[in-house]
């Protein structure tokens, strides 16, 4: 894998995104504006200054990243296959890793930037409304947890999405399969709370209670990072030019 090749593939993914946002269909731009307004302005103003220190913020911004990623990540391979551009790309000198990682980062990076920007807007909006002459900033652990969630949770979704997109015939099928994974992710804590024995949950909560929020955030972040990398490695192992060209 070469950094220059990864950048080239990223460039094309982002170029297509910009060209789509600035011309023709404006659906994604409207979704982005709506999400930005809701989580950048409306929610912080309704929640008050406590929004900056609440753990819910991290989940909310992670969710934004997932929403923004849903369509682009389903499109990365399935879309190219549908539009008959994939085989030409595979017939170039680019190696498997550069194509896969370039595509992954090409859709992740704009989602990260957009979500981080919305988080920044939320901080500004909170200061404007509730600052009262003082600068309100989230505590370091909260900002760190939120930024880690912004990076790692959409990263998990992208890693699953790229695996799905590689094998799907169409973008629609990829998006449908991906939404099943997302639902499983969202409902996993709920299901776990019903399935896992009560004694285990109690001991887990008591173990966590002995740690600071920063330590818990760090632990969860490390787990997510390992999971993200593992799923990307699975995608790399499943990357077969012949199969991708023929599917």
């Amino acid at each position, binding site marked *: 894998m070469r950094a220059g090749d990864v950048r080239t593939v990223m460039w*094309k993914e982002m170029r297509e995104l910009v*060209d789509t946002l600035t*011309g023709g269909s404006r659906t994604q731009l409207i979704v982005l504006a709506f999400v930005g307004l809701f989580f950048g302005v409306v929610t912080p103003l309704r929640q008050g200054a406590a929004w900056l220190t609440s753990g819910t913020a991290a989940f909310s911004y992670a969710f934004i990243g997932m929403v923004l990623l849903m369509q682009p990540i389903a499109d990365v391979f399935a879309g190219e296959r549908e539009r*008959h*551009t*994939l*085989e030409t790309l595979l*017939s170039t*000198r680019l190696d498997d890793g550069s194509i896969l990682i370039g595509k992954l980062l090409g859709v992740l990076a704009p989602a990260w930037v957009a979500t981080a920007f919305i988080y920044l807007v939320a901080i500004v909006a909170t200061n404007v409304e509730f600052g009262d002459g003082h600068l309100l900033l989230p505590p370091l652990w909260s900002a760190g947890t939120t930024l880690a969630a912004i990076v790692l949770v959409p990263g998990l979704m992208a890693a699953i999405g790229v695996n799905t997109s590689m094998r799907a015939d169409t973008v629609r099928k990829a998006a449908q399969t991906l939404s099943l994974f997302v639902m499983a992710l969202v409902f996993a804590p709920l299901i776990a709370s019903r399935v896992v024995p009560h004694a285990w949950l109690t001991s887990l909560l008591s173990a966590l209670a002995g740690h600071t929020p920063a330590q818990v955030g760090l632990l969860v972040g490390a787990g997510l990072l390992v999971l993200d990398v593992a799923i990307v490695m699975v995608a790399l192992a499943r990357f077969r030019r012949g199969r991708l*060209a023929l599917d």
Partner: protein
Amino acid sequence: MSDAIRTRALTRDFGPLRAVNELELSVPAGAIFGFLGPNGAGKTTTIRLLLGLLEPSAGSAEVLGHDVATAADRVRAASGALLEHPGIYERLTAERNLEYYGRIYGLGGAEIAARSRELLQRFGLWEQRAKRAGEFSRGMKQKLAIARAMLHRPKLLFLDEPTSGLDPASAAALRDDLLALVAQEEVTIFLTTHNLDEAERVCALVGVIRAGRLQAFGTPAALRAQAGAGHDGRSGQTVEIVATGVTEALRAAAAARPEVDSASVRPDGVLELALVDGARPAGIVALLVAGGAEVDEVRRVTPSLEKVYLELMEG
């Protein structure tokens, strides 16, 4: 001259289907090779095998000196390809499409700009360079795809049906471009086509494939000569004599001569003679004139590549 492409018993199976069957090809560097065959014959699979997109089930292929099984990346780095579909990014402009592929092949910004301008002008797309490729006609997309394949000056070009979708003038211009490219840059071109006239015009070598198996390989002239051979395997030629007063007795007399394999009068009155190899029609003309026929024209008939192709397809 070294071979740009050499395959040895190259075979590819898809389950029980043998798509390419022990293919033996040698394409010299700097030649335009035409790969002919009906749909599903194995042409596209062969290109995929040569580009290392598919692994062979058996046999081997060497492209530009690299074994495709172990150095497919080097083959792809030195090749350009227009595959079954143009593969154009319709949301990007023509210029951006070329820029992307220029970057992929490691060209610098200035080089991409200069080469894009040269190719877009050559294909008459320069004025449309800032338009999204999605707004292009099929022919324009095809031209843009060919420009993209040529952008990095590859040593080998794979062109799968390059003139499909092009109007006759553009197709003729592309054929001229391909010939110029070979002459100027010594590029080897592996071209698949259904257009036999096109193959005959531009290809130095042709191969005919049917059901995965190579049926014929050689220069168009050699294949035509092969088609002109008699059914007993002897090579020969066909001569048409346009004359009036050719009676059945005269036809039979002509057919009985030792230099004649067969003689028949077509519905339009033309006497068609299959001569043995090296025979000249002068003696037969003299026979006809002596028998009272008036001879207007004598012409040798060269079998077209189309005839060769159809004979091979009929098996």
